[in-house]
């Protein structure tokens, strides 16, 4: 199924039709449409699924961002009108975030996963706690530290690789 999702994503990313701009939701919904087909599969538990969905989404988005970066020549201003909402936030650079998360995973897998579940999976603190089998307070603490650590990584802070 993961492969299937990936294929869908790739097909969209490849931009089969010039002039066809992929909507954010289209990808996700197609993912859903495929996923619900497999609803008869025996999901061992919800946690397994949520963790997988978050991982999946991370992979799809990061791969897309990478593909896009490789195609890009120069910056393009994205005006997020219509379906895409204007936000005041500057989004994190996905590729840098992914790199930083991988680095974090090497030294603290759980905290890395907290971010993956919260950010890519969209899980609430409580849901994350269920998935990781820890208390919600722990998720909050893990998440604070992980974010601080990532923020420093992403802002180009000093690395201590010793």
């Amino acid at each position: 199924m993961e492969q299937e999702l990936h294929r869908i994503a790739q097909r969209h990313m490849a931009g089969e039709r010039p002039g066809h701009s992929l909507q954010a939701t289209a990808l996700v919904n197609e993912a859903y449409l495929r996923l619900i087909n497999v609803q008869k599969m025996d999901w061992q538990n919800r946690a397994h699924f949520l963790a997988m969905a978050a991982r999946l989404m991370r992979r799809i988005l990061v791969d897309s961002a990478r593909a896009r970066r490789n195609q890009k020549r120069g910056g393009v201003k994205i005006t997020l009108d219509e379906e895409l909402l204007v936000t005041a936030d500057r989004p994190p650079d996905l590729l840098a975030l992914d790199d930083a998360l991988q680095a974090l995973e090497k030294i603290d897998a759980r905290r890395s996963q907290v971010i993956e579940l919260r950010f890519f999976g969209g899980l609430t603190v409580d849901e994350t706690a269920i998935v990781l089998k820890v208390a919600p307070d722990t998720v909050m603490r893990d998440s604070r530290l992980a974010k601080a650590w990532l923020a420093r990584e992403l802002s180009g802070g000093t690395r201590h690789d010793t």
Partner: protein
Amino acid sequence: MTPERFKQISRIYAAARLRAASDRGAFLTEACAGDASLQREVQALLEQPTEGLEGLTPSVIAQAIGNADNGGLTGRQFGVYLVGERIGVGGMGEVYRARDTSLPRDVAIKVLPQAFANDADRLARFEREARVLASLDHPHIGTILGVEESDGIRALVLGLVEGDTLAERIARGPIPLAEALEYARQIADALEAAHEKGIIHRDLKPSNIKITAAGVVKVLDFGLAKAGPLPSSDVLGATVTASGVVLGTAAYMSPEQARGQVVDKRADIWAFGCVLYEMLTGRDAFAGLTPSDTLAAILERDPDLGALPATTPAGIERLLKRCFEKDPKRRLRDIGEARVEIDDAERAQALHAGSSVPTSTTTPVRSSPEPISRRWLAAALLSVVAIVAALLLVSTRGRVPAASAPGQFYVGVTPADSFGPGPTRANPIFPYPTRTDVALSPDGTLLVFSARKEGRQQLYLRALTQLEATPIAGTEDSNSPFFSPDGQWLGFWTGVVDAGAIGELKKMRLDGSPAVPLARVPPLRGATWGPTDIVFATVEGEGRLWRMPAGGGTPETLTRLDSKDRRNHLLPHMLPDGRSVLYTIAPPNFANPQIAVLSLVTGETHVVLDQGVDARYVSSGHLVYVRDGTLMAVPFDLKALRVTGTPSAIVKGLMQAVRTGFISVGDTGAAQFSVSNNGVLVYVRSAPVRDLVMSLVWVDRKGTVTPTSVPPGPYGGPRVSPDGQRVLLWKSGGGTLIHDLVRGGLMPVAPGVWPTFSPDGKQFTFSEPSGFVSMSLDGGVTDRFATDGVKVAGSWSPDGQTLLFTRLGADGVWEIHALSRTGGERKVHPAGKTTITERYPQFSPDGEWFVYSSNEQGEEQVYVERYRSAADRHPISTNGGTAPVWAPSGRELFYEAPAPELEHIRMMAVDVTLSPTFAAGIPDVLFEGQYNPGTPQRHYDVSRDGRFLMLQGPQSPHPPPVTQMVLVLNWFDELKRLAPSDR
């Protein structure tokens, strides 16, 4: 860094965070015990923000995939244009700067989305409008240079407008009054020019409005938006409305758009109000955390005018109020009026400018634009992964707590045209279903609904994994779909919904195998499928509730009607135990309806809830039912079979079959919603059913129409007084009016409806809930006749002693009764218990005979019968007839016959002889036209001079077709929040 080191860091970091910032330095020094590198590390982390990263925002996704194609058109030749850099990307396509190689100018090229370009109708309309706009060459409308096609790509060539959008401008803060009014005037100017050409913008919002450096407004993207509120055909596909993704668009949607109705220029006027409000206050006129919140705000709340700058002229505030009228009919009629209002305000500003504080710099204290909260981000994120998650959770069948936020989607009826049966000959007024016509499979994966396409109604199936529904073969003219508990079978009823009609209860598997007929029964009033039996309600039988083996067999009645109270048993829904059924007990007008439980084992019943209709038990532990078009929920104890909490309103504006204008077979109370066992809700919103506005006209025998001085209105049943001086009319919503044909005028005269004159014309009789009331023409009550139920006066006998009238029986058909001043009341027709409708009784001028219509032969036909001698009966009409009336001379009969065109009738005339024996001639067509829709009273009359007083119309359009349903995932969470159990 090693994991061990990181653990050390994290311990100290966590401990440090518990301390006040001022104490942290000392704490770190102590905790790190001289390890300077450790201390630096923790210190650095403590300085980092810990916000964000709580979910994917649309901007993150856009970053990843927003432009994930091959770089688009940049560098390519497109017609005569050399395409340059991409200057924007949005939902309606990408925009490029391009060089016109034939003229020394730069243009903007907007590539139309594929879905748009593939929609031939929409594209044609758009191109037509684009041409008109181009011909306008308006200073405040973005120049449209043409629609070009090259290499299969369709694009719009636009004048290049440099400058900020109004959205960008507002993002920097509210716009000073004078400046805002100037922009508003230019926007109004643009809309006015377009509206004059019949072009509606449909999606006016700040991001579609550009302001050049010179302060000139350019309104862009006319007509690009879909006519409906959301691209309904794309369902779970392209447009997720769940979580802020279309918020930007939703915020400017008019109530009628939000309801999925067809829009006209008044939707632009609404949006104009939103834009003006936003310019002045810096905040959205209607804001919600989620689109559904926003839509709720649009439908239910008024914007906070207190947020306007204190200097806002009263005229502008008034203008905003008029733009924000929820009812389009009451909204500012013409954007030109806005321009006038703004001109006035600007003039007033200019007068004051010299003497007082410059208003352009004053902005009163107001709250800052709502910050993007975490919850908001979380909501936005839901649009993405959480939908996957939510739906998967749904599929795990509630073994785990469901995800936290409900997701809401619009589901279109495509490829069908509209939800429900649409206008039919039996019911041209109420185009919506009179039976529950949506059903979700128990596992929430399949949706079945009835819809109409090209004049044909049938059932459609949509797996939620599909992008479109497919018609189910063999379900033509079917309604009332319901699933078996295992989701393998679909039950439904096939036939024409009409008084006295018989159709077939059927079942089918959804694998394409043919339908299996189960029983021949009148139109259903609800059906439900238990472990072994199907329980259904229809107009026949003692208790109206029936059961039959789902495998086939003979139906048997279940409940026993209380013979006194004329209340129906209908809308059954099986409880999960399979041994008891919820059902509704209600009189035909649905006054004081109740929900009861019937035990299929013992046959016992008890009432569980008052003021409820169409209750279903849902596995969150609630009864969900409808009260006055609002979906209600109340916790329910399945063991004790009683409610355990207070009812809460959940969804307003649910479509329900009451006040359908077709009370005999249409008012079933059936609500358009369905809930799966795992918390998926589907429902249909109702467009408000409007009164039919009719014109009172004279029509002569040749069909020549002469207007009267009565203004058009929601009238019914004109009756001319015998002296030809006065007319009685009843009004939708209640009340009888009197019109003086000589002196004019229209005066309310009585509170009831369905009036008929006494033979001498000095009095009239009308219906009230408690019975009939006779009144003199000056308004004094002269008599009262107590009788219950829904009843309509037909006519008095010439001696004034007997009133023929119709009453709506509990089985949904009209019966003819006679009320005597001396002998009480008796039923005249039909004899015995039948499902035949007989109505429109009228005595002949000599009182010996009466005319009426009956559908005992199938089609409704006109008969004359000797009063009190039923055997002496004579058919009058030959090809269908209804609403007969005697000519005052008694030598001729008139009646309405069906005309080929929907909503039209043919006025027929038949010569009759009453004595010595009755004889009738051959019916002749007098004229044909759009007259007299609806029942239950004859909506025309004949004057002594042989002219017809008719109601022509309707002048107002029918309720708009409904093209989408609303699908809510994880609805149980919301339910538990909104309707908590008291225990």
